[in-house]
Structure formats: structure tokens, C-alpha cells
């Protein structure tokens, strides 16, 4: 039997069609550069702290590494990333006993920055409008909020449906309903 040492490892490497680990690590880092901010914003929308949201995002990309290393499906990886982030953020919020007490819109209300317009009258008007919008958004059902946020991060309806486990029709109805409420609030 031939000794292991007699096999040319570089030659064997050339035969491999699967990427080796360093390639997967690089691929994960590329995804991180592209999706870190959208995922972080989405995780924050669960009302968890910035620190916890960062941890959620880290867990998402570690899971992506394991996913790619296991040679699993690469279809719709963007939807997959948001789905994992959604589940991790929910788990984090439940673990931290923050459920319901805080929503991202409570958090946003506290952090939203004043309009930079130099005209005090315009500034007041813009701030009032923003507060009115935030009040409407806070009153939306949680699923409708998720739909809006995922759409705002560029996800297609099919991806949103996959993240939230809804039908395509429900995503469409949810987005229309939410925008309708925002419109009515703006008119009032």
C-alpha cells in the first residue's frame, strides 16, 4: 500500500472542486462587508441593545460559515441571512426578557435626530411629522413592522415571505396596509 507521504498534496488540492476553508472564510467576510449594516439595523428593530444586535450579527455569519462549509444550498443566501438574524434576534430578546416592553420604534423615538433645517418653523414641522410617523409605526402589528423593515433593506417579496414564514400574498397585503396607514397619518 502506498504511503500517505508519497501523495502530492498540491496535486490533490488542484482536483478539489469544493472551496477549502480559507476560501469559505473569505466568502463569509465578503458577505459580512455587504450585509453587516442591513442585518444590524434589522436586529436593532427587535428592540435589543446595539451590543446584543452586534452579537446577533456575529452569530449569523458564524452560522453562514458552517452552512457553506457543510456544502448546503446557496440559493437565496440573502433571505437565509435575514432568516437566521430574525430567529437569533427573537431568541436574544426572549432570553433578555425584553419582549414587548421595548420595540425598535420606542428605541428610535429616543434616538431620532432633530431635522437639521435652519428654519425653526420648518424644523418644528418636520419633527412633528416624524413623531407622527413613528407613532403610526409603533401601532403597527409586529409582523407588518418586520415586512416594512425587510423591504426597506431591499428584500424581494419572496425573500420576506421566506424570512417570516408567510405567503407572498400576505407580504403584499401587509406592505400595502402599512403604507396606507402612513399615508392617512400624513394627511391628518
Amino acid at each position: 500500500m502506498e504511503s500517505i507521504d508519497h501523495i502530492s498534496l498540491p496535486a490533490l488540492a488542484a482536483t478539489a472542486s469544493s472551496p477549502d476553508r480559507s476560501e469559505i472564510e473569505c466568502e463569509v467576510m465578503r458577505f459580512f462587508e455587504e450585509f453587516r449594516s442591513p442585518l444590524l439595523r434589522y436586529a436593532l428593530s427587535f428592540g435589543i441593545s446595539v451590543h446584543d444586535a452586534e452579537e446577533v450579527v456575529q452569530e449569523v455569519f458564524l452560522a453562514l460559515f458552517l452552512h457553506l462549509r457543510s456544502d448546503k444550498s446557496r440559493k437565496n443566501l440573502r433571505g437565509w441571512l435575514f432568516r437566521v438574524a430574525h430567529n437569533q434576534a427573537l431568541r436574544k430578546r426572549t432570553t433578555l426578557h425584553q419582549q414587548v416592553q421595548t420595540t425598535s420604534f420606542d428605541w428610535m423615538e429616543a434616538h431620532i435626530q432633530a431635522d437639521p433645517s435652519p428654519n425653526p418653523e420648518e424644523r418644528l414641522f418636520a419633527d412633528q411629522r416624524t413623531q407622527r410617523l413613528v407613532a403610526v409605526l409603533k401601532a403597527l402589528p409586529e409582523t407588518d413592522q418586520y415586512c416594512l423593515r425587510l423591504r426597506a433593506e431591499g428584500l424581494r417579496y419572496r425573500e420576506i415571505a421566506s424570512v417570516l414564514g408567510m405567503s407572498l400574498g400576505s407580504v403584499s397585503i401587509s406592505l400595502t396596509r402599512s403604507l396606507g396607514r402612513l399615508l392617512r397619518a400624513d394627511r391628518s
Partner: protein
Amino acid sequence: MLHENSHPTDQELLLAADGELSARSARVVRTHLSACWHCRARMSELEAAIVDFVRVHHQALDAALPPIGRSRAQLSARLSDLAAKPEANSVRGFFHFTSARYPTAYVCFGLLSASLLLALLTGQALRSILSIHAPMAVATTVEDGVEPNRKLTPGATRPVSMHDVCAVAHEEVVVDVPSALREKILREYGIVEKRESDFEIDFLIAPRLGGTEDPQNLWPEPYASSIWNARVKDDLEERLHKMVCSGEVSLKTAQNDISADWIGAYKKYFNTDKPINLTTTVDVSGLDSYVSKLFAKMWPSESTIREKSSHDPRRPMCQVLIRNYHLVGRIT
């Protein structure tokens, strides 16, 4: 059904703005909007509401995002740690967890499961090593589940024009099946909940070839299929899409061939009896003994596997081999 003379609903306007309507319906809405000021005004209001939401969404959140540098470095370090760990980490974690909490019964169960797993994987490894000697025999073997049950999944299409089919490159079409539909398909195929993650719900006739998101056109394709797997089918779909759009094959023929027997269609359109990605010429002399030796070294115990992961520089190469030949990647 949308008509040019009837006002679209807000939902239809939003679907049109988001590019989620079929090409025909989108054209109808566009034509209507060009003629109707009332609907154009409603569309503008919807767009304004989107602008408002995006502004509020970013206004607070963007300012709160910490700089990326620290988290990038942290992830890079954690990935390196993870990459250095054996892939069986999760299995070890299971044993550690169960032994800590349920010392006797679960450890016995774990040992029994491990024995069964080893027996199963040894068989797979031997079969796969043999397959290196006889690739043709393996390549033409069709494993269970790689072709759908014709009664449950005969294939289903929707009316599409050549423009609909060819307006978008095949690779740009990414379709994920909603989870409720996924569960329905798995139930129909009698797949129990535990094994759901082993399957991908695949379209028999790809959406870009006019296939519908219909239970009659979907089936659970096993991830573990080593030869005729989802990637091979993706290659076929891409090939057929190109051939349909270049006029070499009619759309109807492509749909019929892929739904009747996608593996047969692959052989026909690639003029091969095995997937192209397996036909690369590989010098496998000595490979079987190499893999056997590595397995012989790795089988005895989990601690040996762990030890090899940190000391044997050839281990990553073994993993590449394992993945490449679809041996038993998850055990190492």
C-alpha cells in the same frame, strides 16, 4: 384580472412599483398610469409614504451603528477559531451536553447512536472509495429521491411568452419556497419533521422556464444526493434556458423533457451519461489508499480526530477530498 381601463388597487400599484407583477400585468398598469392622473397621484402618494418610512428607518438606526472595524476583526478571529475546530464539533457538543445533564441513559443512547453512525458511514466510505475505481458505474446510479414521484410532482407550467422567459438571465432568478408550502410538500412525500433539513424543495420545471410555485411542480430533493444533485439540475436548467432563448429548443420541449425525466434530459442536452463536473480528469492513483489510511487513523476515537485536527497538516486536505468525493464529510 387587471384591465387598462379599470383603476388598479393600492396593492396592485405597490406590486407594480416593487417590480413584483408579471410582465403582462406590469404593462397593463404602466399603460393605465400613463392615461390616468388620479392613479398617478395615488402612486406618488405611495412612493412618498415609502420615502418617509425609509427616512425614519435610517434616521435613528444609521446613527447608532458602531464602526465596522472592531466587529470585522472580531468575526475574523472567531471564524479562524471555528475553522480550526473539527466539523464534528456539534456532535461533540451534543455528547458533552447530554453527559453533563443526563449522565447514564443519554450517554448509553449516545454510544449506541455513535456505533450505528460509524457502521453506516463506514459502509458509505467503502462504497465511495470503490466508486473512485469505477466512476462510470456510480455516475449512472440514480439514488432515491433525486427524481420526483411523478404522481405527486408531474410538473406544472404557467403561460409565459418568450420575452418573459428571456428578459432576465437565468441565474438572476432566485426563488425560495414559502415555509407553509414547503411543509405541505414534505407532508405529501411523507417526510417526517426530523429530516426536513435534509431536503431542499426544488422546482421540477424551473420558474424561469415557466414552472409554477405549485405542489405539482415541487418536490423535496435530498441534499445528500451525491451524483445527480440540485447543482447538476441547476446546470441543466441554465443550459435549457440558454437553448430556449437562442431558439435551439422550443420552450415546450424543454418543459416536457425536464418534467418527464430531468436526468435523462441532462444526458441528452449535455451529451453525456454523467454530470459534467464529475468528468474532470483526475489522477486518482493511490487516492483510495490515502483516504483509507486517513480514515483508519481517524476512525478509532473522537479524541484521535480531535488530536489530528490540531497536529496533522494533511487533515484539511482530507476534508477537501471527502467533500469532493462526497464521502462522509460531516463526521470529521
